[in-house]
C-alpha cells in the first residue's frame, strides 16, 4: 500500500501549531516514513500536487481570499482535520469580532485600501465540513500523533471531550481552585493538554475551548462569590477561544451583569 499523502495548510495564525508538529522530534521520522508529507510549507518548499488523503488546517478565515482557498483545500482533501484554537474557534484574533474592524484598519495601516479583510475571524467549520477538530493553543503533539496513527489504522481517534479536571485528577495535581482559590477554567474546558497549567500551580486558561457540556455560568457564579470581579471574569473567557459559543455567551452574560451592577444600561 502506498503511503497516505498528508498536507498542512495555514490560514490566519501564528504558525505555532505547525511548529508543534515540527517539534515532535521523537515521532517526526516515523511519521515521515508512514505518511508522505506532500505539502508542508513550514517545513519544506517542495510540494507534491493533490489530492491529499489528510489535510491538517491551521488558522482562521479572515480575508475574502481565505474564504475561496478553504473551499479548494476541502475539494482536494479526503479527510480534513482542523488544528488549534484559530482553526476550530477563530483564535485570539476573533477578539476583532467584538470591535470595529474598519476603524482599526484605518488607524493601523498607511494605505488601508490595500488591506482586504473580513469583519470577523471565523472557524474553518463555518465555511466547509470538517471531519475532526483538534483543540489547543497550540495543539498537543500526542493528539496530532494519535490522529495520524488512528487514520493509518482505520480506527476512531481517541480524543476525549470531557473536562480538563479529569486529566488533572489522573495526573495527581492538587486542585488550584480549591487549594488556592485560583480561578481555573479546567471544569469548562476540554481535556487534551494533560492539565498542564494546574500542574504548575496556574489556573487553566481555557486554550482547548469548551468541554462537551460546559456550564460556565456555574463556574463564574462561584468565582464571583470568591471575590473575582466581573471585568476579570469577562476577560477570562476572552482569550484564545473568545468566539467559541459557550465562552462568547458567558462573557456577554457577565458583561451584562457588570453593566447592570454599575447602573449603566447593559
Amino acid at each position, binding site marked *: 500500500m502506498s503511503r497516505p499523502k498528508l498536507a498542512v495548510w495555514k490560514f490566519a495564525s501564528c504558525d505555532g501549531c505547525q511548529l508543534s508538529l515540527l517539534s515532535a522530534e521523537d515521532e517526526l521520522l516515523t511519521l515521515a516514513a508512514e505518511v508522505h508529507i506532500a505539502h508542508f510549507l513550514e517545513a519544506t518548499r517542495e510540494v507534491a500536487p493533490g489530492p491529499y488523503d489528510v489535510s491538517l488546517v491551521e488558522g482562521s478565515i479572515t480575508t475574502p481570499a481565505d474564504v475561496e482557498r478553504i473551499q479548494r483545500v476541502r475539494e482536494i482533501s479526503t479527510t480534513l482535520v482542523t488544528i488549534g484554537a484559530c482553526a476550530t474557534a477563530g483564535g485570539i484574533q476573533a477578539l476583532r469580532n467584538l470591535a470595529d474592524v474598519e476603524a482599526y484598519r484605518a488607524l493601523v495601516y498607511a494605505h488601508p485600501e490595500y488591506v482586504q479583510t473580513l469583519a470577523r475571524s471565523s472557524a474553518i467549520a463555518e465555511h466547509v465540513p470538517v471531519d475532526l477538530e483538534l483543540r489547543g493553543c497550540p495543539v498537543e503533539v500526542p493528539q496530532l500523533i494519535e490522529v495520524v496513527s488512528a487514520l493509518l489504522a482505520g480506527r476512531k481517534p481517541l480524543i476525549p471531550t*470531557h473536562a480538563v479536571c479529569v486529566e488533572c485528577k489522573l495526573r495527581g495535581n492538587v486542585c488550584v481552585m480549591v*487549594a488556592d482559590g485560583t480561578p481555573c477554567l*479546567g471544569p469548562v474546558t476540554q481535556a487534551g493538554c494533560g492539565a498542564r497549567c494546574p500542574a504548575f500551580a496556574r489556573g487553566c486558561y481555557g486554550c482547548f475551548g469548551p468541554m462537551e*457540556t460546559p456550564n460556565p455560568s*456555574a463556574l463564574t457564579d462561584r468565582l464571583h462569590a470568591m471575590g473575582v470581579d466581573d471585568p476579570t471574569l469577562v476577560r477570562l473567557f476572552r482569550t484564545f477561544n473568545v468566539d467559541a459559543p459557550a465562552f462568547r455567551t458567558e462573557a456577554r452574560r457577565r458583561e451584562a451583569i457588570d453593566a447592570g451592577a454599575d447602573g449603566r444600561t447593559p
Partner: protein
Amino acid sequence: MRSGVMTPTALESLVLLLRDRGYRVVGPQVRDGTIVYDELASTAALPRGWRDVQAPGRAGLERRDDDALFGYAVGASGWKRELFPPRQRLWEAVSDGDASFHVVEAPEPDQPLAFLGVRPCELAAIGIQDRVFLHGLAEDRVYAGHRRGLLLVAVECHAPAATCFCTSIGTGPGLDVDADGVRAAGSAAHATTPAPAVPDLVLTELLDGEHRLLVRAATDEGDDLLAALEHREATTGDLAARAATLEAAQAAIDRHLEVDGLHDLLLGNLAHPRWDDVAARCLACTNCTLVCPTCFCSTTEDTTDLTGEHAYHERRWDSCFTLEFTHTGPASVRTSTRSRYRQWLTHKLATWVDQFDTTGCVGCGRCIAWCPVGIDLTEEVAAIRATDGREVTA
C-alpha cells in the same frame, strides 16, 4: 495481640522496618498547600504541626500549636490511587509481521505496599473496594496485585475537618480492636454501614502531656512488627487519654447525613425539582467521583502507534459525569447534568446498597471539599428530605 505505647521516634523505626522488609511505604505529606499520600522515605515527611481546614469547595492548611503528626483529617486523594491506579496499561499487542502478533501482559507489581496513616473511614472505603474488585464474578487482577500483601497502619482521628461525617455513616472517627476483630468506634453502625478493611496496626496519637502513640496490633503481621519496635505497656492513663481524644473527635463532627430511609427517599424522588437546581450549579467536572475513595468506574482505551506494530489496551478512571460514560450505540444516554448528578448521588447512597449490601459513602467529605463549586451532598440530600415528593408524585 500486643498493644503498648511508643514515642514518635519509634514510629520512625516502624517506617525503616517496613522499608527494610521490602515495602513501598506510602503516607501523608504536605504538597501544594494540602495533604497528599505519596511514597514516604521517613517520618520527617509527615505533616507535623499542620491541620487541614476544609469547607465546601475549599481545602487548605493551617499551623497547629503542637507537633501532632496526624493532626489533620484526610488527604486530598485517597489510597485509591495506589490500589486502583488512575491509568494502567493492561496489555500491549506486538505485531510479528504478516497477520500474527503476540500479547505482552502488564507486569505484576514488584513491591508490596504499606500504608501509614489510614483513617477509619478510609479503611471502610478499602473494604468497599475489596468487595467491588475482589468479590465479584471476576477478580480484578490489577487491584488484587496491589492489595495482596498490603500492610495497613491505621490512625484514629483526633482532628476531624468540617467536611467529615463518618459519625452519620458509622465508619469513624475511632477503631475498636478486640478478639472479634476491628470495628469503627465513636459512632453507631447502621444496617448499611460498610465494614473496615482489617488493619495490621492501629495508632492513636495522644497529645496530652508527653507526645506519644498508643499502638494496638490487630493481625499477626502487626503483632510481629510491634514486637520489633520499642514500646512500653499502656497505662490506664493512656487508655483514658485515648477515650477522651475519641470523644472530643466525635463531638467535633457536626456535619450530618441522615441515613434513615435514605435508599427509598432518593429512589422515590427521581423527579424532584432539586435535581434541576443542583444541575444548574454542577459543572459535570468529575472531581467528586475521582476523589471519592469508593468510586470504582473506569474505561478502557485502545490505541495504536504510528507504525501500526503496537496496539495498547489501557484502563483509566472514568466517571458517571462524562458523556462518554453512557455512550451506548449511537449516543450517550445521560446527556443532562441533572441525570448525571442524580446517577452519582443515587448510586453512592441508594443503588450501591442493592448492588453491594452497604452504602457507597464512608463520610470522608472529599467530594464536598474538592468540588470546585462546593456542592455538598449532605445538603442536597437534606433538601430532598425536607421536600420529600413521594406522596405528591406517587
